[in-house]
């Protein structure tokens, strides 16, 4: 017990002090880790806890990012309000997409999320006036404390930490228990009074909310949004991070996102052909480390 408390305190100290020890570039990397960590945890709410694999999950991240950017650039909202509203917009998208998805199983559910994602992507590409089309939107301004990278880091840290606490309580609550139950045995769940479709739908909405929040934060961190964030290839990122970290633990996706961001930033610096190595890494990961890093850690504990 004492060891865990000390470990937690060390982590806390590192996380709080980190931005002062490094350059702006690295602060941005840390912000990315936090944002993607939340993104991946929300994805795992659907996958690991809910048993729903969404091939097109990036649609929620992208909608959150674009909602934030459009609210700022086209409607004159300030960064804070945009960040508060964007997840709500994404939750509505989650409600719509989820409504159609929850009745489907496995492959079809995945393909439908993929179809929705590409639908949103192509609409965004074609709506130049609203979304900036191919170019995306840039020049997202933040004012005040969060304008500087270090300030933004602490804001992101607070938001992500709070979100993770909320999600942690959710998966350990009766709601989370019912979610895990329907994942394993849907007929049994129905026979025990669980409205499985409604439960899955609610999970979609919640996951979309937090993915949208992550997207909004990422848009602000980059001061811009790009349509590529809505392309089908972007959906592999949350899947990869979750599997890398381990989909059977709550914190796994966060661990995965930290490793993924590090790996990607290192690779892009090393070679123009970083995608090649990333692809090899993914295949090796899946074949050699299917339970992810957390799975490995757990095995070493027993």
């Amino acid at each position, binding site marked *: 017990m004492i060891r865990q408390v000390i470990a937690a305190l060390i982590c806390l100290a590192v996380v709080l002090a980190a931005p002062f020890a490094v350059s702006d570039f690295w602060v941005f990397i840390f912000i990315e880790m936090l944002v993607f960590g939340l993104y991946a945890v929300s994805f795992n709410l659907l996958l690991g806890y809910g048993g729903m*694999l969404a091939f097109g999950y990036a649609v929620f991240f992208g909608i959150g990012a674009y909602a934030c950017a459009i609210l700022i650039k086209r409607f004159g909202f300030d960064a804070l309000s945009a960040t508060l509203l964007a997840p709500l917009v994404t939750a509505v998208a989650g409600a719509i997409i989820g409504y159609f998805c929850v009745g489907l199983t496995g492959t079809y559910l995945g*393909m439908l999320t993929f*179809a*929705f994602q590409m639908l949103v992507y192509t609409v965004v590409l*074609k709506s130049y006036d609203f979304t900036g089309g191919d170019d995306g939107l840039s020049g997202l301004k933040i004012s005040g404390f969060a304008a500087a990278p270090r300030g933004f880091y602490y804001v992101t840290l607070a938001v992500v930490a709070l979100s993770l606490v909320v999600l942690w309580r959710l998966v350990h609550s009766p709601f989370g228990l019912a979610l895990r139950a329907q994942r394993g045995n849907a007929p049994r769940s129905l026979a025990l009074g669980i409205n499985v479709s409604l439960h899955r739908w609610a999970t979609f909405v919640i996951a979309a909310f937090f993915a949208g929040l992550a997207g909004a934060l990422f848009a602000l961190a980059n001061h811009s949004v790009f349509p590529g964030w809505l392309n*089908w290839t972007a959906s592999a990122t949350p899947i990869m991070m979750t599997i890398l970290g381990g989909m059977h633990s709550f914190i796994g996706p966060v661990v995965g996102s930290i490793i993924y961001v590090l790996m990607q930033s290192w690779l892009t610096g090393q070679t123009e052909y970083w995608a090649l190595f990333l*692809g090899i890494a993914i*295949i090796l990961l*899946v074949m050699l480390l*299917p339970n992810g890093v957390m799975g490995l850690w757990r095995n070493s504990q027993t």
Partner: protein
Amino acid sequence: MAFLSAFELLNDPVVVIRQLMAGLANGMLLFLVAAGLSLIFGVSRIINFAHGAVFMLGAYIALTIVNAAGQSTGAFFLAVLISTGFTFLFGMAFEVLCLRRIYRSPQTFQLLVTFGLVLILGDAVKLVWGPEENSVGVPPDLEGIVRPFGVSFPVYRLMLIGVGIAMCAALWILLYRSRWGMLVRAATADRQMLQALGIDVRRLFTVVFGLGTGLAGFAGGLATPVMSIGPALHAQVLIDAFVVVVIGGMGSIPGALVGALLVGQANAFGTLIYPSLSIIFPFLVMTVLLIVRPRGLLGKPE
């Protein structure tokens, strides 16, 4: 305004017939790719996200051989033969090395592995052939125009239609008139049953995967005179194939034919009538179809 002129164009029977035939030619190429995708899914339940990348690989290989062996017709056919053989063997190798171990794993893993291949092939072609787009000319014996129904139409595309029909017939004979084809159809219907009958399902999976990728490579080779071949080709082809397979029904070869013909025509007439919406349209269809009738036109209900 564009609508009006499109209407005028459509009133001209020459234009209509030409678009019909162009749609047919594209449809046949699409069929080859989609048939491979459906075949793989039907037997092993794997959604091969790398299918477009294999098509691209086949195209690049054919390209290289034609350019190296001279632009003769003989060189072209040799090129297509080699690209088909290579992608067939490549597919089998990939299946044995990477996919075989993870059939029992959750679908997430299979997705990631095929996605890893997309990344690898995407960069590999850039590495080997450079980032520019290439093409070859139409093989000399197949140049020129014919005038079926009094409408001028390129010979090569007519040949594509012919090849497509021939492949339909060949696939039909293979699947419905051979013992091996019967095994494939049985595996599509009930994998476990087949295993219980003592059939070496593993080898079947390997060959089917190879056949699927071989079809993609074959189509890629044939496509070189009519498409510009670049590193981004794989995405467009994959998306088109997905739409076709969803329309026709995942796992159904006849469905792939129907879907490909429809999408081919939609593409041909869509670009004529309302070009700016034509990239959104396939995803709209895909979304609506997955909501209303997930199994597509000819798929079997899950």
